[in-house]
């Protein structure tokens, strides 16, 4: 469609330019010279196709995706629960409940598609600044869903890890976290990582502090500290694939918001305009199709 429009726009100029050279009687409006310099319709079409995928305007079927090009680790910033609830006339608590259910549904779809690791930014350190009732509700939801899904994760052989600061997390939730991590630690093929009370800056600082302890025990020398060593001390060291290949943020916001700062260096960032509780399998397939169409170079020359 766009190539047709671009062609229609270009055609008059293809006629006018020769005429300008043939006769001096044609008046060539000044602004058209600017327009000529800006017509790059083929490239514009290519770039626009890429942008359309972000706006979720195309429907992708599962068969269109290539299994061998699936990302190994997909990360989610689950944004939009409160706006979803407000839009539908529900309470914030109901919005968060719908969002929490969605994490497990989407994770299941990811594993079925052959993705090894799914991580979700469930609660950030900054979220402690929210209304106390909302925070309490969120902690209860996490508690409930972890407790009621232990058998589900065992049946599906999904390893569950919860990463974050954890110092402010209620005891009851800490107990559930410990239980589910223990119950699922033996599973190797599917890994769900929930980031709760997580901050990317805290993660990096925590890694630095871990190096202090190791240095004091004589396990490392000062000169041993390098990027790889820091990376091994990050909270994502529980994962076989600590750096996400694809990061999806919902609700249209285009920020990392202090999530996986170190880990996201070469991650494909996909911004979906839908609110998190509305993010379903179709939206996930669109994001994966967009990912598979990219040529990632990890900062190297090709």
């Amino acid at each position, binding site marked *: 469609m766009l190539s047709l429009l671009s062609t229609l726009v270009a055609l008059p100029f293809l006629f006018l330019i020769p005429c300008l050279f043939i006769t001096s009687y044609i008046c060539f409006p000044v602004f058209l010279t600017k327009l000529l310099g800006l017509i790059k319709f083929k490239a514009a079409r290519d770039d626009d196709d890429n942008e359309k995928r972000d706006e979720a305007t195309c429907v992708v079927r599962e068969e269109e995706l290539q299994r061998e090009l699936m990302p190994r680790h997909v990360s989610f910033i689950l944004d939009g629960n409160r706006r979803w609830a407000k839009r539908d006339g529900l309470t914030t608590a109901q919005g968060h409940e719908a969002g929490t259910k969605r994490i497990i549904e989407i994770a299941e779809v990811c594993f079925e598609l052959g993705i090894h690791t799914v991580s979700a930014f469930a609660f950030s350190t900054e979220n402690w600044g929210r209304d106390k009732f909302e925070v309490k509700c969120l902690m209860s939801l996490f508690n409930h869903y972890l407790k009621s899904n232990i058998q589900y994760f065992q049946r599906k052989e999904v390893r569950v890890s919860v990463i974050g600061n954890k110092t402010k997390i209620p005891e009851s939730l800490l107990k559930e976290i410990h239980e589910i991590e223990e119950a699922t630690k033996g599973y190797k093929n599917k890994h769900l990582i929930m980031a709760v009370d997580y901050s990317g800056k805290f993660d990096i600082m925590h890694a630095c502090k871990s190096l202090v302890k190791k*240095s004091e025990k004589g396990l490392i020398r000062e000169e041993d500290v390098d990027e790889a060593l820091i990376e091994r001390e990050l909270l994502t060291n529980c994962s076989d694939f600590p750096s996400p290949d694809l990061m999806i943020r919902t609700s249209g916001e285009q920020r990392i918001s202090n999530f996986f700062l170190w880990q996201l260096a070469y991650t494909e960032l996909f911004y979906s305009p839908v609110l998190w509780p509305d993010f379903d399998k179709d939206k996930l397939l669109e994001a994966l199709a967009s990912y598979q169409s990219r040529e990632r170079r990890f900062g190297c020359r090709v």
Partner: protein
Amino acid sequence: FEAIESYAITLGLNKKYGSIDLEKLRCLAVVVDIEAAQDVANVVELLQWLTTIGVKQVGLFDSQGLLKKSKDLILETVPGSMLLEEIEKDVTPDGKRIALEFISSSDNKEAVMKAANILLQRYLKSSHPEDDKGEDFFTESHLNDALRVVGENVHVPDLLLVYGPIRSHLGFPAWRLRYTEIVHMGTLKYMRYGSLLKAIHKFTGVHQNYGT
């Protein structure tokens, strides 16, 4: 439609983009992929557009440091441009200048690693109790200070524009990206002034809750 809209904005046909309030945009960063970084002409044109729009500070990043190597050429070619560190030392600020910063991957993880080493050395040299967990030596502000010692800028860009085929920031200094708005602009070779103006205008309307 995107292309047509961009052309309309460029031609000044859309009054919404006639004037942009840049108060929120104190620092803009631009990420270019390696192929784009090899062609400095496009980068220079982009900087000239940004100067026209009124942006005062731009951080230019490419993972391999190719733009760092072309620093002198860029500074000579972009009118009113100066290195950020020189503008910061300048006691007679000139509103028409654009401050440029040249960044590469060595300013990312390698810099954090060097800063972590500085903190580790400070901690080990200090007299501290045996059970001390390093809380007084390893905070975000300590790492900020250590990064400055290493020669890094810790200013947080408000907006990061990514030019390249991939929607990734390609290793831009992670420590600085906490709340930065990240917008993918497509390839630099086919950049459009209208799209640039639209992205900056859209940013000025963004509201952040910062997690609360």
